């Protein structure tokens, strides 16, 4: 039903004298009808490329060179594209897969493309929405849904076309724990329903849905083996950059005792967006120098809104924010950037320079810091990016892009770091890189304020601040707040 033999694929050279990228090397597996196979691999290991080749999209729409054998639903994928609906693909970034005005239209679009009689479409849309728990939002716009709902909608839209083979590229990727739980429950019903599916992931919970798993490392695959066996061999998964279990994490120790001097003081902070939505309702917070603070809370609690006040991206509607003793209200974002290094979510949207070197140098130059070359070279070396110095950041994999954003922060060497969900979508290798850098910064006495959904990370902080509905609902040591 789904077969790959000696499957190789290389992307064309992006120009600028850069070589073609070999993405798949001698990949092989056989998957019977009704079976499920998990493909585990770190970011950049070739998981998405494998899905695109098997769906008939690469090299047809991407360019590049393919060789070997790939068959899906009885079609020779490499010779001719499979007919519409034979192979369904859930993309890693579900939001880009959604393009119609309402949830129900999104599901109907594929059915219309299949030529389904109009009188049958309504019932099929209803069935797909019910199956993925989306009936309550059927008339809403797909872009106002949560990440988990968007992923389930993309899944419903693909599933409604009744593909004979379903390819799921990182179905849990980029989701917070609640979104992951929602999608995992949806995938369980699919696996139990006998769908023929291949799913790529670096998360053991998702791999456990399939009885067999293969591991991709730099485009090369291991032979498929029992998932239980693969997951038991934790060393292999750590070496492949897939996992980074907490027992391997560095310690977050600060030398000596913390200074009592507050570096961030928030008093009676209220904030409402221009559309009238009030996000913060009277936050009071004092963060001493060198403290590691984790800010937790459900989606929409106001975590990112609070963090954005620390570097002046947002200004209080009422109340004050003082950074290093000075009122942030009277300071430009540029001035605050000298004190507060800020990491946004979605690194691929933050990169704007022509090369990785220029990207890292941008902030150093904008702030008129000394020793531009030295700072940039040290930051590139710290994140193993020296080889990519002249590469455009936009063509790098997600993991390397995230490393570039961290290097851009590291080059500024700020006394405060405010990081917004730095752990979302990170595989083991990226986790290791992030945590090693954070531990190093912490040891240097840098104040860390991290918004996170990852409770393992929050548990390592000195202090956890829990927000709900724009208010602080708990503030204390991790043991007290996390229980």
């Amino acid at each position, binding site marked *: 039903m789904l077969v790959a033999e000696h499957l190789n694929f290389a992307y064309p050279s992006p120009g600028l004298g850069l070589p073609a990228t070999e993405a798949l090397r001698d990949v092989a597996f056989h998957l019977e009808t009704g079976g499920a196979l998990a493909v585990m691999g770190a970011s950049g290991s070739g998981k998405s490329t494998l899905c695109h080749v098997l*769906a008939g*999209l690469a090299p*047809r*729409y991407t360019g590049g060179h393919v060789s070997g054998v790939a068959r899906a639903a009885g079609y020779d994928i490499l010779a001719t*594209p499979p*007919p*519409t*609906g034979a192979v*369904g*693909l859930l*993309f890693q*970034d579900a*939001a880009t*897969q959604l*393009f*119609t*005005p*309402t949830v129900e*239209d999104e599901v*109907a679009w*594929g*059915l*219309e*493309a*299949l*030529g389904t*009689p*109009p009188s049958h*479409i*309504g019932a099929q*849309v209803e069935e797909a929405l019910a199956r993925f728990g989306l009936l309550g939002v059927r008339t809403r*716009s797909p*872009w*106002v849904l949560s990440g988990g709902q968007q992923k389930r909608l993309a899944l419903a*839209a*693909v599933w409604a*076309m009744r593909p004979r083979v379903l390819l799921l590229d990182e179905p849990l990727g980029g989701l917070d724990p609640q979104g992951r739980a929602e999608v995992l429950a949806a995938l369980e019903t699919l696996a139990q329903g006998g769908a023929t599916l291949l799913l790529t992931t670096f998360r053991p919970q998702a791999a456990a849905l399939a009885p067999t798993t293969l591991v991709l490392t730099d485009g090369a695959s291991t032979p498929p083996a029992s998932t239980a066996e693969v997951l038991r061999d934790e060393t292999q998964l750590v070496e492949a950059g897939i996992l980074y279990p907490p027992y391997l994490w560095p310690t977050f120790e600060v030398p000596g005792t913390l200074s009592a001097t507050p570096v961030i003081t928030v008093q009676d902070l209220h904030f409402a967006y221009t559309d009238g939505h009030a996000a913060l309702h009277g936050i009071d917070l004092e963060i001493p120098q060198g403290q590691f603070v984790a800010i937790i809370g459900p989606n929409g609690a106001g975590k990112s809104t609070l963090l954005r006040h620390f*570097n002046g*991206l947002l200004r209080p509607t009422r109340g004050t924010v003082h950074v290093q003793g000075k009122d942030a209200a009277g300071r*430009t*974002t*540029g001035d605050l*950037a*000298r004190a507060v290094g*800020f990491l*946004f979510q*979605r690194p691929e*949207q*933050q*990169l*704007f*320079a*022509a090369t990785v070197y220029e990207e890292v140098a*941008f*902030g150093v130059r*904008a*702030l008129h810091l000394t020793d531009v070359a030295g700072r940039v070279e040290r930051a590139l070396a710290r994140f193993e990016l020296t080889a990519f110095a002249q590469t455009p950041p*936009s063509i790098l994999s997600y993991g390397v892009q995230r490393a570039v954003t961290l290097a*851009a922060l590291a080059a*500024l060497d700020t006394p405060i770091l405010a990081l917004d969900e730095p752990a979302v979508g990170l595989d083991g290798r990226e986790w290791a890189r992030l945590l090693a850098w954070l531990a190093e910064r912490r040891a240097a006495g840098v104040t860390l304020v991290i918004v996170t959904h990852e409770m393992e990370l929050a548990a390592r902080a000195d202090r956890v601040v829990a927000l709900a509905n724009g208010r602080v609902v708990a503030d204390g040591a991790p043991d007290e707040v996390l229980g």
Partner: protein
Amino acid sequence: MSVALDFYVHRESWLHRLDPRVKLWGMLVGFATAFLLPSLIVQGVLLLGLHLLLLGNGIPWRVLRGLWRQMALLIVLILVLQPFFAPSGDVLVAVGPLRLTVGGLVQAGLFATRTLAIAFCVGALLFTTDQRALVQAFVRLGLPYTWGLTFSLTLRFLPAIQQLFVTVREAQAARGWVAEGNLFRRFREYLPVLVAVIIGTLRMSDRLTLALAARGMGAPAQTPDSVSVQRTVWRDLRMRSTDWLVFTGITLGLLAISFWLFAFKG
């Protein structure tokens, strides 16, 4: 991800259910009325009628107020400038070459109410017609499906591109970038943002191409026995008796205006 450029207000009213082609026709006749009957009373009645129509069909007052706000600057400019461009009749105030006249004031009022009437005619269509139905109406009126889809995707992605611009600008600001100085310098400093937005837009369009191809755009569908099938349309537009009735009423209204103009205005 940002919300799409969509003005639709979901309700279950007869105006919402009305065939979008009839609403399009009604909008055009509304335009014609605003232009062919240059009377403050007629424009005022048309504007009032549109407000009552929309409120009566569940469009909340805050949505109408939003449209008033959008139009406010333009209306103020018309009311302030127009009297001086077309002075006629009794002079109320004269300052140098500028003359404020009764005729000029009436003309400005007429232009302002006409502009508002046109805006609310468009609003009556967009507030009560979802994007899918609107695109379908254009397709049924002869627009190729791919053009309709392109129109719909443009509405979907314009705000996403705007959001991309904000994201890149914020990322640069967080690393110390501040656009300052004269206009030329600011423009030059915005260039890296624009380049990043263009690259981001191209990547977005690449991903969209793959998403459309994966869902069968441009590829013929086949039945299990390899017979090609055409794309179908869920909830296709169909003229019901109410639609024909409203269409006839609007057309008769247009004929009555034309007859009155021909018979009494030459």
